[in-house]
């Protein structure tokens, strides 16, 4: 059991080829079994920061530690790291040519070396938990957005990750579908899963986050307990941002 400093981001800067700085000297720590929500205006670097945690983006400088070890050293097997960090995307990114069941089975079989039978058992169990057991043989194109995102969450969970990364999981959904996806995320949070969530869902942030990180223009401008951030924000940009999202 490693209670603290589960993931550590140290002085990370990300500069794109065209010279724009997506992240500017960011340092922060994510705790084990805690839900961290990253908020901020679009273009503030939230998604870049999240995508860096499983190295879909590589930092220009700085270091990222996972359970005390740098994941940027040459000898680190990226695949092993990515296996233990589940990721959920804004656009679901389900594999359209595979059935729901095959979507969830694929990585279990080819990464975790499970047999088809073992994988299917896990998949069906998870599907029933999100109430989509009857969709196992459907193709993604036959599902609603909310169903797709729940399947995407299940697909990541099937590898029993140590942390779940959510990149604006509800931004591409209709309001009534947001609810069903948030419900799954809430029960996941209650089960003690370490979660790092980039979202505009302030209600979720208020009720389920253990820690809020506010970003603007590639910098972390404020972080702390939700009560503190929502009721007593210090930074003027935080006040401005919360004003604009809460009173829309």
């Amino acid at each position: 059991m490693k209670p603290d400093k589960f993931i550590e981001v140290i002085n990370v800067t990300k500069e794109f080829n065209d010279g724009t700085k997506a992240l500017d000297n960011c340092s922060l720590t994510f705790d084990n079994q805690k839900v961290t929500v990253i908020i901020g205006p679009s273009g503030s670097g939230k998604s870049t920061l999240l995508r860096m945690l499983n190295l879909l983006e590589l930092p220009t400088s700085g270091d990222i530690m996972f359970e005390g070890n740098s994941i940027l050293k040459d000898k680190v097997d990226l695949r092993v790291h990515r296996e233990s960090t589940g990721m959920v995307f804004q656009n679901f990114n389900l594999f359209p040519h595979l059935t729901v069941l095959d979507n969830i089975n694929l990585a279990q079989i080819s990464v975790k070396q499970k047999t088809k039978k073992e994988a299917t058992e896990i998949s069906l169990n998870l599907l029933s938990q999100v109430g989509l057991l009857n969709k196992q043989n459907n193709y993604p194109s036959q599902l609603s957005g909310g169903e797709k995102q729940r399947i995407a969450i299940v697909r990541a969970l099937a590898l029993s990750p140590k942390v779940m990364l959510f990149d604006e999981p509800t931004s591409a959904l209709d309001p009534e579908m947001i609810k069903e996806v948030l419900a799954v995320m809430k029960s996941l949070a209650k089960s003690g899963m370490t979660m790092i969530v980039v979202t505009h869902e302030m209600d979720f942030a208020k009720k389920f986050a253990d820690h809020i990180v506010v970003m603007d223009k590639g910098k972390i401008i404020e972080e702390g307990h939700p009560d503190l951030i929502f009721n007593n924000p210090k930074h003027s940009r935080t006040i401005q941002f919360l004003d604009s999202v809460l009173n829309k």
Partner: protein
Amino acid sequence: MTLLLAVISVVLGTVLGLIPAFLRLSSNKFAKFIGTAYVEIIRGTPLLVQVLLIYSMIKLKVFIFLGIDLSSFIPGMLALLINSSAYVSEVIRGGILSVDKGQREAGLSLGLTQGTIMKKIIMPQAVKNIIPALGNEFVTMIKETSIFMYLGIAELMYSALIIRSDTYAIKETYIVVALLYFLLTYPTSKWMSSIERRLKVSEAR
């Protein structure tokens, strides 16, 4: 003869076309350069020149097999293959690039290897975009076999040349030749579009 040439060149050309396609998609700069150079050079020079060049470089003894003179068939085939591989590689590359990059990211985030992602996720989706364009290439190939008359291979145009000098019916001969080419290409495009339709059905499922 014409059909045989076209079938061989497209089938083997597809296999060969995978190589420059992946070279160009590689992140390795040198591999990318080789792939791009190959495609640009082949596409930038006339097929006729390539055929005659390869024919003059590879000198084989006359060797008749099943009524085909392999000494001119093999170099001719080789030239057509090389030519076809360059065009097909662009079709394949386009097909692969048309798959949303989120698919690759999703694969990576699940810990899949690049190879598995290509084989199980990208290629099955790319094929749907590749097949129609490949059909196009197939029809083009059938027509381009006409170039082999310069090597004395008994394809359609060569036969036409002989008939023309026997009968002096120039116009008539070429009209028949055009018809015969069309008879080969039309069913081919029909066949390709039926494959396309079937692929679309599988997607809508």
